[in-house]
């Protein structure tokens, strides 16, 4: 086979032309781009569903949609945002940045990489197609509690199960690739404790994914058996146990929420050090904090189930373990603040999003801490207080992390600077609308409005109207983001290799040209 090597023409190592470039690509940047665009499109689809929800909730009464369709909207909104927006966006960023940050030419397993991506459009194609079937799509919440999702589900639940399986395979393959890349392809001299924090965050996330995606696959398979093959895992009439479903689901589900935030921790750490012009404070405690969050996330799952009727000892155990997670999380926040302290700070768009991330994610952390207090959780559980909590950690948390990362690396990817004025405008509109949308949800929740309600009592009307206005504003604002991204791809001031002042010392990615060569590092750099 040595002849193959001879015919290898090193002059033609650019991308293939046309559609086949994207269908058959094994290049980490192309695949990263695919992931990012996929997630961007899903953000608008899932966002449109949120708009339907908020339009219906603008006033009490049923005006726009019927409860059956409303339930399909909340369910698919949740599923799409979690599995179709946040997770693929992080994988996209990993694909682009990991090889560049560790000094590698590409990911370790490029063909697998192609497969992991192309599974996703199929999975979501299947999921979304159920909305057009006569019985309608999944309507049992993104947590799909049995028996509502088994005995009482529309028959399209089988498509849902299949699509969850496909998403799971995609995530597992992606994680294997990431772990392999990080362990085998680091530049000489880059020891584990010299890895950039984004690389660390993804290494930990990838292990979490490999650990819990099979659990998710297990639980949907049990559902499949109950629905089609006469088993009774979750069917009380057949001797099964509906609570077992929740234990298995949340054993996946809680680590899943950290899967959705750890990479954002990594991104934000880089941005804060760049724009504070000062190395990240407490690098090693940042790494240990992420590792302890990941480990603890396996022993807190039942904090989602405080009202299912657990023994007292169980309730207390899960309360304490959940409170423990606040420690490493707090450490991270303190470290970010200490990084800013005595820095030399500028406020470019990525930094603005990161500052907002630290502040608002912390608010989500506080409400999380309140939710951990079992007796108080009896009052909070399944109300809008919970909706406020998880949106604070997911939207100004995970999503802001992603947006910040996009602004931070966009000049590197495209070779063009984005428009700073528009970026700042995007930030302020987003920041205001996010708070107008999600902050009042705390109050309607405390006042007693349960979640997943298409209609509500009159005393919640004022705040719901305000929330809906905020939501429409948030939705519209993201069109501006789309515009900015397209504008940057097409034109803009030429970006230097280091892009940001002083970033050249901060990571290997800033030593490459902007845009970087197709095979990032063909010669491994030496890390001191």
């Amino acid at each position, binding site marked *: 086979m040595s002849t193959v090597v001879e015919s290898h023409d090193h002059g033609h190592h650019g991308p293939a032309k046309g559609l086949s470039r994207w269908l058959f690509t094994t290049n980490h940047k192309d695949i990263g781009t695919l992931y990012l665009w996929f997630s961007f499109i899903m953000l608008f689809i899932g966002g449109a569903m949120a708009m339907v929800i908020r339009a219906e909730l603008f006033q009490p*009464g*049923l005006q726009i949609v019927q*409860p*059956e369709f409303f*339930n399909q909207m909340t369910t698919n909104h949740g599923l799409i945002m979690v599995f179709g927006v946040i997770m693929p966006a992080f994988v996209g960023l990993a694909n682009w940045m990991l090889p560049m940050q560790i000094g590698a030419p590409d990911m370790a397993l490029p063909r697998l990489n192609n497969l992991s991506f192309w599974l996703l459009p199929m999975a979501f194609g299947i999921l979304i197609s159920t909305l057009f079937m006569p*019985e309608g799509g999944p*309507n049992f919440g993104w947590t799909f*509690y049995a*028996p*509502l999702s088994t005995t*009482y589900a*529309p028959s399209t639940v089988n498509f849902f199960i299949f699509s969850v399986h496909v998403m799971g395979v995609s995530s597992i393959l992606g994680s294997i690739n990431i772990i392999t890349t990080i362990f085998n392809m680091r530049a000489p001299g880059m020891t584990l404790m010299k890895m950039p924090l984004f690389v660390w965050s993804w290494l930990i996330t990838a292990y979490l994914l490999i650990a819990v995606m099979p659990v998710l696959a297990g639980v949907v398979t049990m559902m499949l058996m109950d629905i089609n093959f006469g088993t009774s895992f979750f069917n*009380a009439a057949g001797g099964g146990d*509906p*609570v077992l479903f929740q234990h298995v689901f949340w054993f996946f589900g809680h680590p899943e929420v950290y899967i959705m935030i750890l990479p954002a921790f990594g991104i934000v750490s880089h941005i804060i050090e760049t724009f504070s012009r000062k*190395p990240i*404070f*407490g*690098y090693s*405690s940042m790494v240990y904090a992420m590792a302890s969050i990941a480990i603890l996330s396996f022993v807190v799952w039942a904090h989602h189930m405080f*009202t299912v009727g657990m023994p007292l000892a169980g*309730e*207390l155990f899960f*309360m304490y373990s959940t*409170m*423990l997670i606040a*420690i490493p999380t707090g*450490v991270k*926040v*303190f470290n970010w*603040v*200490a990084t800013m*302290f*005595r820095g*030399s*700070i*500028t*406020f470019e768009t990525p930094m603005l999003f990161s500052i907002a991330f630290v502040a608002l994610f*912390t608010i989500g952390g*506080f409400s999380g*801490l*309140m939710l951990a*207090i*079992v*007796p*108080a959780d*009896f*009052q909070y559980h399944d109300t809008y207080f919970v909706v406020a909590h998880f949106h604070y950690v997911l939207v100004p948390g995970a999503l802001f992390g992603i947006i910040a990362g996009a602004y931070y690396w966009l000049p590197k990817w495209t070779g063009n600077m984005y428009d700073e004025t528009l970026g700042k405008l995007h930030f302020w509109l987003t920041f*205001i609308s996010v708070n107008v949308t999600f*902050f009042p949800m705390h109050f309607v929740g*405390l*006042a*007693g409005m349960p*979640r997943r*309600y*298409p*209609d*509500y*009592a009159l005393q919640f009307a004022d*705040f719901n109207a305000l929330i809906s206005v905020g939501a429409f504003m948030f939705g519209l604002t993201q069109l501006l983001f789309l515009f900015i991204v397209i504008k940057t791809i097409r034109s803009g001031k030429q970006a230097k290799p280091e892009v940001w002042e002083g970033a050249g010392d901060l990571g290997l990615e800033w030593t490459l040209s902007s845009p970087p060569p197709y095979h990032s590092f063909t010669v491994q750099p030496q890390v001191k």
Partner: protein
Amino acid sequence: MAYIKKVFTKLIFVMPVLFSSLVFSESSDYNMPVGVTEVSESIFELHMVIFWICVVIGIIVFSIMFWSLWKYRKSKGAVAADFDDNFWLEIGWTVAATLVLVWMAVPSTQVMVEAYDDAEGEINILITGHQWKWHYEYLEDEVGFFSNLSTSQEQIDGEVPKGEFYLREVDEPLVIPTNTRVRFLITGNDVIHSWWVPDFAVKQDAIPGFINTAWTNVPEPGIFRGACTELCGIKHAFMPVVVRAVEREEFDAFIAEKVALAEEERLLTSKVWTKEELMARGEGFYATNCAACHQAGGQGIPPVFPALVGSQIALSDSARHIEILMEGVQGSAMAAFGDSYSEVDIASVITYTRQAWSNGENGDGVIVTPQDIVAYKNRIDL
């Protein structure tokens, strides 16, 4: 631009203060209700303690952060220092965080132990969540009833103005005595529901196959309104909880009346019913119990909920019709009604669906009587 920036910055600081002052006042509509029981009051206090601890930590962290952002901005010539760790500082704040958490955990544990108590009550009530209504049964007296939303569909659809207790009113509230330990045994009939009364701080999932317990002891008479808080299908938002707490004498009278009614019901079963009587009774029963799925005109919502108009079962198969009502259809949303309702109710609704709409002309004209249901039950018991 600079002016706008200033306004924004002010807004960032003012907003939280504004909002927390809303929360601050105890009687606020936007905070957790204090409630009426000892447990609900302890939980409210705990909630406020934890809230204020978070506010204080927040103020400290955010002031340091925003002060640093202000003080060390490059535009004012700040030059970055070059430190990237401080061992004792890091140990210090880790320990401090741990201590604060322990401080929070102590009262939380106390309140939890207070709230968690599954000793028998003086009155024990079995609460069963159904799609989409609650059933209450007084275990000592063996009487029970369903509690349905009483807000009209016209209000929901906006055809008439919404009443004061829109979506928070039922046809028959649960009645409990004051100053009595009442224990709730909570279960589900079909999917998982969750029974919540904020003023008692009781929220327990109603899970098929499980019986969860909760308890309360209400000092003052009053009407307390709550909700179902676990997604249970289409009408999840339309199955509120209403509890009426009354003095002991009034409660005893209420139970006596229920017992008498139940006795009357038993007598009715043996009475000879005419078609018209059955139809009249069946119509009301149908409207409250079947119309949610099969619709008032019997047309259903195919393919999810089949039409009863023109259904072969309703037209010509009365035996199967009885069986479906008594046993439900396994693996579908069609529940078994036999265990929860009287023979008279079942017979009348079957007769009604066989005679109403166009079914009367097109069907076999069979009338199902309470005696037929008794006969069916006896056959099954053999």
